[in-house]
């Protein structure tokens, strides 16, 4: 067993510097690396390029790093929930690249897998494809997209073991598995860290080989963005 555990979030984030490119897991506020984001804010590293599906909300998730102007460039697919983001983007303070969600996922997956680039039909004929190579396959046009190159990947899992093996829960899985091993150093934070050998190998979603540092996070808020419920008598089925 190769031991991947670090004592806390401070050790987990060692080496993060100004100007680095970071991958951050999560969809909306679901499955985001809350502890790592809080530590990045505390470290006050600046001029960051952050790659994440969304940009959080004004006062949580990556919105915290936007507030403190630590992000120089944001690569995301949907940012509709963050007013401060929209303001910084429209005023030109923040560089933004909006890219299709599936392309974002596949660029992570490609980086994890050692595939330098791939063709996808998404975005052909739109401004997303401007300046990119295009090619026809089977009568349909495709756009060449490249694997991400990032310094750190911050992911959040439900359970993990000291060897870095990870298990995700529900839709908190999202981009997290695809970002593991997609950067020079992958830092995984988990709600529950157990000794290696405790988890059933059949149930592991991401093997520890893709993870360099793992720690048990603290004080998860797990904020819900849109509380939607139904009543017991009548509601949508």
């Amino acid at each position: 067993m190769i031991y991947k555990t670090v004592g806390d979030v401070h050790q987990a984030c060692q080496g993060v510097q100004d100007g680095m490119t970071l991958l951050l897991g999560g969809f909306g506020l679901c499955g985001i690396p809350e502890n790592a984001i809080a530590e990045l804010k505390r470290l006050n590293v600046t001029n960051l390029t952050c790659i994440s599906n969304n940009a959080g909300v004004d006062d949580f998730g990556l919105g915290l790093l936007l507030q403190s102007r630590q992000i120089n460039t944001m690569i995301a697919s949907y940012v509709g929930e963050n007013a401060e983001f929209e303001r910084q983007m429209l005023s030109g303070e923040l560089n933004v690249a909006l890219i299709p969600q599936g392309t974002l996922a596949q660029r992570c997956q490609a980086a994890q897998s050692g595939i330098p680039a791939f063709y996808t039909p998404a975005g052909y004929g739109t401004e997303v494809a401007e300046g990119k190579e295009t090619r026809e396959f089977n009568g349909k046009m495709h756009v060449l997209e490249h694997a991400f190159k990032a310094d750190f990947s911050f992911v959040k899992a439900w359970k993990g073991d000291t060897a870095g093996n990870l298990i995700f829960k529900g839709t908190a899985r999202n981009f997290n598995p695809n970002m593991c091993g997609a950067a020079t150093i992958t830092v995984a934070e988990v709600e529950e860290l157990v000794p290696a050998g405790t988890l059933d190998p059949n149930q592991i979603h991401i093997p520890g080989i893709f993870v360099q540092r793992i720690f048990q996070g603290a004080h998860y808020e797990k904020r819900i963005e849109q509380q939607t419920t139904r009543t017991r008598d009548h509601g949508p089925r």
Partner: protein
Amino acid sequence: MGLDKYQIAQRIAQEVKDGYYVNLGIGIPTLVANFVREDIDVEFQSENGILGMGPFPFEGEQDADLINAGKQTITALPGAAFFDSAMSFSMIRGRHVDLTILGAMEVAQNGDIANWKIPGKMVKGMGGAMDLVASAERIIVAMTHTNKAGDSKLLKACSLPLTGVGCVKKIVTDLAVLEIRDDVFHLLERAPGVSVAEIQAATQGELVVSGTIPEMTL
């Protein structure tokens, strides 16, 4: 006059067939799930990573780790599965999802769609829409026929940045059901009480009306 958003969803639900895997976009499309016939088997995919999406949870049973692509709390039905984002878009690009229903700001008569950006004003992002429209075999657009200013959203050519080219084949609005064939809109059905002339007046793109146009049944 015209359908409300629930009625638009109700009409679209008639297009959902037994055995379909369906992806629903944010807004009116989300409502479609409420109107699908109970005697057919359909599974809803949400691109953030669930197949077999169920209704909203009962109050007090919300789970922060269980949401849909609109970030709303949901439930998982028996037989549901969770997966990562890359696999989710393998389902979409790989054409394993049978039907995509999404909203739009503009649709052009050649099937182009715009729904993610108003330059200088509003930038929400495309989310999964570009992947969905580039790959889906069946796409239904759910939208109002005109925007808040009263301008037609069914155009000769889109003016906003595109989400996809030549991909839309069917549109259900508050006024009509339309099909795109040979680079023109074809009127298939009218909303109850809405005349062909009213639909023509609200459609800026070329609209073909052949024969008597039936009222839609809800």
